[in-house]
């Protein structure tokens, strides 16, 4: 009798484990979720069997979701277009975007689950801080990492397989300073930056260096941290008292929206200028767009531009995502170009579905320096061996609640 019971228990346990194992196989969060081919109704026949797997990481939820969602949609659009045209080297492209909420730890977890999915190359991460952590992992694995928008210097400094589509902070700080000097926007400039964020500090440092070279004066330099990102009255008062004619907002748009409001509250109206992190400010829920009137920011992508690549991208984006047009911004464009750059490099290096990730890293790090991609964020984009793109940013200005070329 007792024996029977033991056997029953053992059998029951075995069953449970068997089910658990089954569940793991089918419900694994890292399971492939290839992008649906939504541009063409008839299924495309691919010349070769198998898929080329591109991973993506970014903040699809959270404070920075505006960036992550834009990257996701931009990349998915490029993948759908490429698949409709026969894929890369005749292989279907699978794209799998994982959420990191802009957090370094979650980002590394996302990277590991993408590796379990057998990703061959990574388009990510979207923001700089997680990218620093993930690029260290990628360099150790010899994984090719192409970040669409991670612009801090150290985001791709971990190894020679790390590249970026957007311009670096170096470039943003310098170009912003040059723009101020070239256009005689102001002679007295104030800078507000987030001292707990490497994106923010990096741009500020380079702006200060270039300002000295270009001969305009930095009259006030004020910091805040993630923990004190609500009250900016002291910083703004100092800007006003120092007589800053232009305030450079070296940060992302969430704190910037508060600064714009608090500056208006005390009746202070300088020229506001910022890096590409300002992109998306108009898409914030319930944001009073009149606050951002006249705000200038660096951007490589303007929806209103009339060149062929931009027109094609804008039209296809709007057709594919009619309800999500607010995500049509430079991050979507960066991601779109990133996927096309990976395609061009993969074709040059003849990457197949069976090429191992580490081998892809070796092939593409050479191929990316040899390609010339005519993209949305710039024509004849190419890369230096250190991973930096070769192109110049443009400046946008907000007029009557819409973005125009400055």
């Amino acid at each position, binding site marked *: 009798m007792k024996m029977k019971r033991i056997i029953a228990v053992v059998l029951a346990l075995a069953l449970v484990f068997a089910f658990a194992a089954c569940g793991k196989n089918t419900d694994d969060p890292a399971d492939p979720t290839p992008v649906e081919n939504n541009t063409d109704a008839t299924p495309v026949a691919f010349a070769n069997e198998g898929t080329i797997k591109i991973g993506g990481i970014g903040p699809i939820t959270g404070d920075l979701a505006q960036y992550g969602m834009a990257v996701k949609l931009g990349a998915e659009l490029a993948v759908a277009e490429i698949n409709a045209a026969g894929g890369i080297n005749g292989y279907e492209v699978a794209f799998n975007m994982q959420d990191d909420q802009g957090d370094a730890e979650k980002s590394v977890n996302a990277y590991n689950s993408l590796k379990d999915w057998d990703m061959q190359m990574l388009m990510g991460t979207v923001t700089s801080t997680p990218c620093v952590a993930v690029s260290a992992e990628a360099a150790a694995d010899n994984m090719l990492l192409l970040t669409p928008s991670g612009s801090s210097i150290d985001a791709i400094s971990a190894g020679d397989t790390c590249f970026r589509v957007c311009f670096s902070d170096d470039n943003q700080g310098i170009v912003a300073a040059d723009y101020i000097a070239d256009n005689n926007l102001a002679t007295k400039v104030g800078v507000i930056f987030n001292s707990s964020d490497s994106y923010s500090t990096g741009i500020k440092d380079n702006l200060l260096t270039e300002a000295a070279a270009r001969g305009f004066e930095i009259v006030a330099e004020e910091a805040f941290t993630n923990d004190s990102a609500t009250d900016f009255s002291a910083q703004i008062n100092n800007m006003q008292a120092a007589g800053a004619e232009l305030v450079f907002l070296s940060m992302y748009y969430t704190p910037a929206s508060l600064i714009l409001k608090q500056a208006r509250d005390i*009746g202070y109206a300088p020229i506001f200028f910022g890096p590409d992190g300002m992109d998306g400010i108009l898409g914030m829920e319930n944001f009073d767009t009149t606050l951002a009137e006249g705000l200038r920011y660096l951007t490589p992508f303007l929806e209103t531009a009339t060149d062929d690549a931009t027109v094609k991208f804008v039209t296809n984006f709007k057709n594919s995502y009619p309800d999500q047009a607010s995500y049509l911004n430079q991050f979507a464009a960066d991601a779109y170009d990133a996927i096309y750059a990976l395609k061009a490099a993969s074709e040059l290096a003849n990457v197949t579905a069976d090429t191992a990730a580490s081998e892809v890293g070796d092939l593409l790090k050479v191929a990316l320096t040899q390609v010339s991609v005519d993209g949305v964020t710039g024509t004849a984009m190419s890369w230096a061996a250190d991973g930096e793109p070769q192109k110049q940013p443009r400046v946008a200005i907000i007029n009557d609640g819409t973005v125009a070329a400055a």
Partner: protein
Amino acid sequence: MKFLSQLISGISLGSIYALIALGYTMVYGIAKMLNFAHGDVIMVGAFVVYTACVKGGMNPALGVLIAIAFCTVLGVVIERLAYKPLRQAASLAVLITAIGVSYFLQNMALLIFGSDTKQFSSVVSLKPITLAGGSLTISGEIVTTIIVSVVIMIALTLFVNKTKPGKAMRAVSEDKGAAQLMGINVNGMISLTFAIGSALAAIAGALMCSTYPALSPYAGAMPGIKAFVAAVFGGIGSIPGAMVGGVLLGVIENLSKGYISSQLSDAIVFGVLIIVLLVKPTGIMGKKINEKV
């Protein structure tokens, strides 16, 4: 002029700290417990106003009233479910429970509203005041916050010192057992304390998010901690102390940002707190308590 505008911003920030600190000090004074979930009740209050006014298009005054009612009920429910069963337990157990409630509220808000920051519309329709020929502007939110904090502080002081329920509250605070023997409903009094504290939290939430219009599930956490510091600074348990502590904290924080370093301001604020506590361990207006041995 710069000093004056820094001072006014400091007082405004301080009034918000004071408003939150009043809730902390009220609950600590009567129930002798640190309600660390107070900051998150503020966040809930702000979200109720956001839902009613921004999403539902209601009148701001009506929205604030709904938030007050909602938070009052929430405060009483939290007290009944989480703190009342622990009335006889060690104070550490209650403290940990309060932290648990704080995380619970944050995560509920995350589930319902998501973690992206919402832009809050001001509930204050007062026009900004311009002084000294336009070189000094004080926003309507700042004026309202300062006035509301002072009015609430006076009303609370009168309530606790001059009314019958106030007297009963003070009795409960002094000796629960003896108060019960005198026929005071101890549980009722503690519930009333939580109801008042949470109603204040709703007002603080609406005013805080009107001045700094970014609302996220974590919006209450940092101001909650700062307000707790303000309450300790002024002498926890003392109602005028919370007001004084809050305003001083805001002014010190803003002046050190404005004149010393915007990176070191938090270090300076907490440094001042340590010095005050070294010199006067019960806070600026705290009463000295002689323990009978």
